[in-house]
């Protein structure tokens, strides 16, 4: 008798649904997946090792490039860990700015997730709708940091600079008439806060639009309900965090359970699912976008009323003022030393985690008292999620593998680091 072998399919790394460079070895029995073996490491850039040879501030830029769709949240965890080691206090305004941009980032990430998830399941229009909204948030990133994606905006001790009072404007060109440009610039007349406020006012209706297209769509439900079910107990064992855990019905959110920055002063709810399937995780994330919108609104109203410093006054981490540097030799030397040598961090170790859009993103730093970390370890939520790939797809069909990849919200920047 001939031996019957499973059909082995190499899914990725060059595959439209591989979300970057995921390589999956699928063992198929017909269309049914028997075993899924994710291979990672194709985007390994050695972030943790690179950080060992650079001063603390120089690695902030690397953090953006970990999970490259939720940039500022990565920076946040890193900066918080350094602050913990240094014992630096962050001014309240900077905390609000950080929270506001964390939530902007969460929406950015969830929009990207929703767009690609829907695209994987076949609803390609979603993708472009989501990117329409991402554009505004990217503009907010750009206004505050000068970069649309890799912002490097947070610093140990606060944020790089205060929010701008004006937004960049579109200009008339060969392709855009004056009328079009005026239309596009309409919500850019005020400050960044006005611009974001305008966005938050509109955003709920956008989410309604997405839900109208998907939530009750029969095909969407058929494709998502009861796919990739993880029960609450198993989700904990697998080390799930974030929406993956909440989708299984566990109300665990670092913003609530161990509030950092000003989350304890803000009002928001954390949605949880019941069945732990892809559809629940979809609903959880969509609701999270609405909650993030709520948080941004609260931050905006606080930030409007409370001007103040956005950087700690601790000279150890904060650069001296420009004016001082013009007159004061010591300030100039200090500035030079700070930006070349950086600052020594007291010996010790610290772990700080933030509620990243994908889950618990933490950095663990061991310092030997030098101006560079002795060891940096990044806890990426996606790594735990992708480890459950085999368990989540076994017994499902090929098309469901794509759905599960989508629901995990995988970004290889953070998994491979």
């Amino acid at each position, binding site marked *: 008798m001939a031996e019957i072998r499973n059909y082995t*399919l190499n899914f990725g790394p060059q595959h439209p649904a591989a979300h970057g460079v995921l390589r999956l070895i699928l063992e198929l029995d017909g*269309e049914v997946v028997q075993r899924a073996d994710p291979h990672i490491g194709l985007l390994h850039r050695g972030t943790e090792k690179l950080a060992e040879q650079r001063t603390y501030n120089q690695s902030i830029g690397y953090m953006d490039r970990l999970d490259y769709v939720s940039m500022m949240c990565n920076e946040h965890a890193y900066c918080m860990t350094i602050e913990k080691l240094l014992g630096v206090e962050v001014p309240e305004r900077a905390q609000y700015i950080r929270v506001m941009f964390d939530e902007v980032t969460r929406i950015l990430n969830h929009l990207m997730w929703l767009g690609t998830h829907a695209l994987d399941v*076949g609803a390609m229009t979603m993708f472009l709708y989501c990117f329409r909204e991402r554009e505004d948030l990217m503009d907010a990133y750009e206004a505050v940091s000068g970069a649309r994606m890799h912002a490097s905006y947070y610093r140990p001790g606060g944020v790089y600079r205060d929010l701008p009072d004006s937004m960049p404007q579109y200009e008339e060109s060969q392709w855009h008439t004056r009328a079009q440009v005026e239309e596009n610039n309409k919500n850019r007349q005020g400050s960044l806060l006005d611009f974001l406020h305008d966005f938050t006012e509109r955003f709920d209706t956008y989410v309604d639009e997405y839900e109208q297209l998907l939530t009750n769509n029969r*095909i*969407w439900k058929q494709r998502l309900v009861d796919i990739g079910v993880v029960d609450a107990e198993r989700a904990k064992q697998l080390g799930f965090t974030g929406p993956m855990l909440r989708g299984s019905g566990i109300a665990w959110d670092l913003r609530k359970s161990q509030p950092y920055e000003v989350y304890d002063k803000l009002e928001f709810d954390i949605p949880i699912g019941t069945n732990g399937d892809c559809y629940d995780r979809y609903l959880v994330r969509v609701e999270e976008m609405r909650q993030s919108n709520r948080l941004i609104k609260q931050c905006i109203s606080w930030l409007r009323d409370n001007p103040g410093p956005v950087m700690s006054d601790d000279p150890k981490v904060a650069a001296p003022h420009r004016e001082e540097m013009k007159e004061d030799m010591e300030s100039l030397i200090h500035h030079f030393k700070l930006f070349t040598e950086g600052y020594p961090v007291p010996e010790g170790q610290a772990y700080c985690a933030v509620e990243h859009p994908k889950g618990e993103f933490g950095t663990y730093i061991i310092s030997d008292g030098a101006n560079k970390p002795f060891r940096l370890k990044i806890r990426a939520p996606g790594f735990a999620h992708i480890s459950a790939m085999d368990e989540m797809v076994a017994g499902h069909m090929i*098309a469901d593998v794509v759905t599960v990849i989508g629901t995990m919200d995988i970004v290889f920047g953070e998994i491979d680091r």
Partner: protein
Amino acid sequence: MELILSIYEIPLINALVKIVMILVPLLLTVAYFTYFERKVIGYMQIRIGPNRVGPRGWLQPIADAMKLMFKEIIFPQNASKTLFIIAPIISIATALAAWAVVPFGAELVLAEINVSLIYILAMTSIGVYGVIIAGWASNSKYAIISTLRSAAQIVSYEIAMGFALVGVIMISHSLNIGDIVKMQSGSGVWGWYVWPLLPLFVIYFISGVAETNRAPFDVAEGESEIVAGFHVEYSGILFALFFLAEYANMILIAVLAALLFLGGWLSPFEQVEFLNLGASFLAGPSIIWLFAKTIIFMFLYLWFRATFPRYRYDQIMRLGWKVFIPITIVWIYVVGIMYYMELSPWFVRV
């Protein structure tokens, strides 16, 4: 002049001229259907679509065709070269051959045969061999999976579609598409078969979408799962042939929907007296009506594609076998009852 006319009288030349008269506009329609698709879906997705080649992008399909024609054809390792080339030829040949019996007006038909409906079903069924052979010859795992999917899918939806057409045949007592249209004339919009056969009509069109492997039934080429499916290894003109065949089939399904259920070239204002159209062009049958109705269905294809997520393979099968086929069988009985009751204006004893 005399000479040209006399040459035209030769049957072979005559047939060739007619074929060219169908094929050239058809291929042009296919080309501009792709442009139309990209534009329509573009606007649905708040973007502009092609607008760089020629004014407003009108030359885009020409540019695409040129690119595909001059592209190198790459044969995968260990692929069966003969079959690899034959596959797209089968696809395009059947897709185009089906057009031979499509009437564009009361007298405008290339091959007036009495079993034209069966002929079209036969041609679309043979078309699946193109897909199967392509998947087999490519020596690619993705292509094989896609081939299996598409073979199963086309076979099952062929049944649903066939049953849906049985209703039309029962009503019209004919397998000749021209006659089917003629039977729908005489009582304006109400004479069209879409009314007594509404469920069959819906099933016919959905099956048609499934049969042409279009969204939301495009599992055979679902890009996010099996990349491009059976034509994943094809490039250049061979790929273009698959592409042409798919679009020619889509238009065929749309034309058939218009012919069989919406009265083809008959005017919707046929019996509307109060508009006082009289003998004007709007009231009379004309090819323009056929095109207008066809375009509606062609637009539906694009609308579906922009709106719906993709079905999973087993769900498509379930929909076909457990929903569509039972409904069509039940409705055939209902048609039988209507036939017995001689429901006017559709059921008249001949």
